[in-house]
């Protein structure tokens, strides 16, 4: 564990070098909240509720989504992994007693600590403008189930990014695949609109896909869009997806290594 702690600390330091980039990105991301406020405000004009939820509940959903993305979202991990493979930097990990998945997960965790803290600070700047529109439920069980759901979401997001990064073993350019997947993940993860606005049958089908657990699920627990039964049931499915994706990541790594040619001295 000590080596991964070192990787985490080094990752923390290297991410702090880019703190101004993260800070600028966080501040600019606030514009997205303004967009949400204006767009959904126009949709809700003259309506008490849409899909069973009021404007404050929907705005709260997007504010929590904003924070979650900075704390547990995989931003560019796929790109970093693919660069390791393309540039041959991966070779050093093959010669050392270190698990590449665990190493990258440690670096991912450190990056999210920095981006999460800066994203949270950016939100604090905007909070005086939004606080009157937020409606967070106060049930204790939502925190108790929301925190493990967030951890599993981070693992799912990272594992998917890891698998896409591994594509660099087979393809020279992977960004097309990454952004293709991002479009699907964004819409089926509930980042454009809360998934419960979908027709019930579609919503039910989507709840069995891993994308549902990438953003919507922990958010829905924390913001009161789903009840205790659905949250417990969802947590079990989410844990199953996390295990499947971690296993898939390991399998892709092993298959990829068979294709890999380490060159140079």
């Amino acid at each position, binding site marked *: 564990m000590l080596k991964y702690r070192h990787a985490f600390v080094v990752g923390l330091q290297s991410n702090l070098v*880019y703190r101004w*980039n993260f800070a*600028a990105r966080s501040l600019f991301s606030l*514009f997205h909240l303004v967009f949400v406020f*204006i*767009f959904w405000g126009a949709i809700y004009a003259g309506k008490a509720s849409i899909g069973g939820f009021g404007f404050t509940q929907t705005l709260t959903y997007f504010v929590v989504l904003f924070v979650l993305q900075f704390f547990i979202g995989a931003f560019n991990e796929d790109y970093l992994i693919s660069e390791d493979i393309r540039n041959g930097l991966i070779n050093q990990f093959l010669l050392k007693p270190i698990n590449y998945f665990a190493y990258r997960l440690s670096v991912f965790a450190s990056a999210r600590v920095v981006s999460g803290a800066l994203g949270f600070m950016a939100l604090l700047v905007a909070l005086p403008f939004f606080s009157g529109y937020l409606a967070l439920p106060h049930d204790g069980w939502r925190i108790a189930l929301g925190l493990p759901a967030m951890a599993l979401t981070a693992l799912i997001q990272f594992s998917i990014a890891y698998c896409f990064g591994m594509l660099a073993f087979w393809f020279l*350019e992977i960004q097309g695949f990454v952004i293709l997947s991002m*479009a699907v993940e964004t819409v089926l993860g509930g980042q454009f609109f809360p998934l419960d606005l979908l*027709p019930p049958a579609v919503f039910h089908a989507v709840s069995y896909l891993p994308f549902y657990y990438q953003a919507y699920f922990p958010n829905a627990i924390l913001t009161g869009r789903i009840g205790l039964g659905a949250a417990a049931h969802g947590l079990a499915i989410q844990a199953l997806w996390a295990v499947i994706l971690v296993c898939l990541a390991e399998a892709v790594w092993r298959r990829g290594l068979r294709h890999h040619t380490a060159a140079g001295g």
Partner: protein
Amino acid sequence: MEAFSRYLRIWLASARYSLVRAMMFRGDLFIWALVELLWISVTVLTIAVVYSHTSTVAGWTKYEMLLLVGTSMLIQRFLMGFFWSGIYEMGRNVRNGAFDFVLAQPGDPLFMASTRKLELDGLLNSVVAAGLVVYAARKLGLHPAPSDLALYACMLACGVAIHYSALVMAMSLSFWITSSQGVEGSYFTLMEFSRIPREAFRGFASAVFVWVLPVVVVSNAPARAILHGFEPTWALGLCAATLVWFALAVMVFRSGLKRYTSSSS
């Protein structure tokens, strides 16, 4: 006139190079065209979901909104097709010193940097975005006169110029900060506002997003030209915004260029 024909020849040479390169990597072209198509579909899906719960947003019906979003996409696809790659690479090139290559070329650095590559996938998908506009116009029973179409085309060109200017300014930050990675995201965040009807903006938001940042005008002005014909206020406002933003972009780029000290600037 001589300078214009020289720059046209340079641009044609770059376009020919981009075309040959795209044909060499046809698989890549296919994937990226699919990526763009998927993002368009995701946006259309969002509109479909929203309008399944309401009949109007800020007084705009579903097909009026599709026309607005199609227009916004058309502008963005033109920007992606003609300028995105060059401007995006500018940030990285400034950081690693490869921008020297641009400065050594026989032309204005901003022109050379931003027109180096054409992205065929963006241009291909502009056909899809145009199809969306035509579909929405037909559903609305619109039959715009040739003069309205010419006005629409001019306004689209102004919109592309404003988007171009905003992106140049965002990427010019790389002359000042360690890395501009993620800065392009701020551009996309701001451009989200171009998909909202002007009527949704009130008070301070109206002042900022309609008058100070012309993100709303770029799409609303051409869409209104198709929906309501020539409106002098919108047309003049868009022309003025284009001139101001382009002048600002050139100024910011040039003052950034003064800071450039070749490798590791």
